[in-house]
């Protein structure tokens, strides 16, 4: 597949960028893995091995990048593997991702990081970044082998799935990580407040008789994490923000100049506690779905630029596990394959925001956050792009999805839009 002389011409599409909501007509010629020319009416160069793809009516956009993924390997391969996860990513137009370290065992040393990278090199068709734990075994007690993990190129430290509850441990971690130029990505939760909660605390949790996770559980921890970052000067990244109040706390600290970034998950923009209905575990995740007004305000915050990145928190679980009762079923839903069509269906197609926001927040900024170059569709740029068909539809059947798990609210549902082509360098990873 490393035929660097391979030439691809994408004809008739419209090009999206992070700089403008306007799509620009342009044929894109890719030679030797780079974008050599962009223009209207480009002709394919003469010769062998030229692939011409008709993109009329379709949108070309820089390939997506997701900073919050659970690939479950090692240890929980019945849910997902690095191979199935990377194929799910490609299926959704994502060509780079950061894997969370809460595997079994957890990724808390350079050797563990290397073991995942070895699997990825063999099994994944897209580059994989592995994050490392802040504390050993994510237990929140002792610092993990940070220097060793830094040497293996982890872009971020996180105990994702759990907070670092001990203030002093977190303060030490932040002071220590600064010297390695590593940010800390925080799962914000006060465990004493969350207790055995399984959904947002409020009227619906009362009606269903399910113990609640109050919004303050997330908001208090988020506030503390940023304050410690402010004090230590570390870069803190707040994961999966769910409440308007938490978002506004981040906004305020950003205005104060604190080095804080944050992410929002598509499901927290689209769904709320009312969707749980008759104990549907496809709406159970942590942090939980909140209130309809949070949906609206998070969307507004995304438009206003409070959220640096969109990230799915792709969290596969087997159908058997999710068939459990609501309290016992595990937290988490998949997202890699549904993110783009769902964001298009729910927001872009309705004019809530433009393609520029999607490119910026789900392609360019996630790469910058992990110190990678963005991949704009420009002459001389790296060819890393997708072709998206806004007129087609996608039905998310088990067969269609490449993830090993199908624990998504969109299972067997149809959304507007379809990823037609995924291309990196000279390789066409997907074409349909």
């Amino acid at each position: 597949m490393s035929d660097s002389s391979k030439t691809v011409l994408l004809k008739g599409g419209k090009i999206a960028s992070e700089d403008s909501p306007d799509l620009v007509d342009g044929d894109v010629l890719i030679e030797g893995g780079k974008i050599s020319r962009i223009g209207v009416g480009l002709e394919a160069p003469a010769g062998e091995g030229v692939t011409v793809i008709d993109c009329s009516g379709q949108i070309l956009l820089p390939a997506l990048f997701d900073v919050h993924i659970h690939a479950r390997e090692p240890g929980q391969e019945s849910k997902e593997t690095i191979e199935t996860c990377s194929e799910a990513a490609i299926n959704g137009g994502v060509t780079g991702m950061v894997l969370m370290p809460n595997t079994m065992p957890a990724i808390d040393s350079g050797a563990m990081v290397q073991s995942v990278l070895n699997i990825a090199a063999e099994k994944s068709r897209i580059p994989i970044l592995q994050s490392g734990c802040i504390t050993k075994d994510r237990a929140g007690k002792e610092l993990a082998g940070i220097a060793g993990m830094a040497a293996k190129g982890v872009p971020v430290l996180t105990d994702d799935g759990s907070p670092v509850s001990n203030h002093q441990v977190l303060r030490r971690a932040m002071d220590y990580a600064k010297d390695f130029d590593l940010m800390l990505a925080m799962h914000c939760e006060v465990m004493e407040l969350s207790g055995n909660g399984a959904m947002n605390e409020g009227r619906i949790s009362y009606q269903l008789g399910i113990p609640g996770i109050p919004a303050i559980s997330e908001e208090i921890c988020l506030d503390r994490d940023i304050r410690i970052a402010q004090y230590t000067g570390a870069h803190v990244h707040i994961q999966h923000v769910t409440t308007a109040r938490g978002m506004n706390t981040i906004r305020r600290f950003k205005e104060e100049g604190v080095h804080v970034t944050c992410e929002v998950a598509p499901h927290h923009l689209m769904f709320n506690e009312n969707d749980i209905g008759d104990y549907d575990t496809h709406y159970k995740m942590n942090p939980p779905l909140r209130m309809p007004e949070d949906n609206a305000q998070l969307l507004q915050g995304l438009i206003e630029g409070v959220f640096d990145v969109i990230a799915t928190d792709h969290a596969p679980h087997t159908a058997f596990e999710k068939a459990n009762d609501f309290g016992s079923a595990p937290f988490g839903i998949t997202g890699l394959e549904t993110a783009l069509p769902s964001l298009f269906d729910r927001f872009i197609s309705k004019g809530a925001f433009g393609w520029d926001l999607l490119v910026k927040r789900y392609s360019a900024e996630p790469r910058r956050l992990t110190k990678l170059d963005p991949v704009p569709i420009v002459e001389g740029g790296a060819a890393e792009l997708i072709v998206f068909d806004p007129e087609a539809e996608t039905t998310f059947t088990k067969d269609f999805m490449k993830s090993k798990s199908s624990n998504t609210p969109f299972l067997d549902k149809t959304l507007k839009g379809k990823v037609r082509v995924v291309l990196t360098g000279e390789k066409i990873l997907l074409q349909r």
Partner: protein
Amino acid sequence: MASDSGITPRKDLLDIESLSVEEIEFLLKTAAPFKDLFKRSVKKVPALRGKTVLLLFYEPSTRTSASFEVAANRLSADVTNFQVSQSSVVKGESVLDTIDTLQAMRTDYVVVRHGASGIPNLIAKHTNASVLNAGDGFHAHPTQALLDAFTLREVYPDTNGKKVLIVGDILHSRVARSTSTIFRKLGADVAVLGPGTLVPEGRHKFMQGFRTWEAAMAWKPDVVYLLRVQLERQQDQFFPSLGEYHKVYGLTTERFSELQDRGLWLMHPGPVNRGVEIVDEAMKYERSLINQQVENGIATRMAALYWLRPGTASEDSSRKSIA
């Protein structure tokens, strides 16, 4: 015997929330002749002859399971007590394994009690048998609500505008949820009183509540419905001590006198913690409906069993035609 009077039977009885007022009225109307039956020497009717009722209790409950057993027997059904582990750690996944067994046994009705909310809903989705929720977690206890409504109707044939004060652990009580829902559906006003720790967060947005007995009494309730205080709540710091609970939220001697003076009705789902939520002498109160509630439990559970219709999956059709 009540006729069907145009009310379509349901497969399952999982909660009160999803029942229409017409369905509730039908169930209460159906229960009345069943109760009259108890005065006869032969208390049985053949309505469910040849049907199997399975009792699946994951939480210990002598009273409710006995009530269902008597109800099923009086409808001439065959009753089986399925021995399950009454450990609180039995999760939905192992419940589903049990359900596969039940499907194979071709049970017509499953009466289930479980410590986790939503387990009956889960079972109902996986079996053709009719599922009757006999109490799940903090979620629902629909037959308790029906017997409470039946009992309230016996003292107030018109429940519209009647005021019911529910006192105690509202947060963890499936009885509070289901009974307040059925009372409201029957036109009654419901308000709650309990420690701030034991009423749901944000309750002021969706339920009427009081902070003190005095304020609650000034509301002029017709019925005081006491909930059982789970003794482990004190260990979890929901209130400082049982003594303090009794003083602040319990039916003390003084409050009981006021109840007597005003002639208010007293209800309690049982079993009672004497000296905690209720002072001992109140147990002999002439306007206590507690024993009536227990008696009405049988008639209303008969009505529920009588009304429900097991599912009609093809593999069941042969059985149904034989029956």
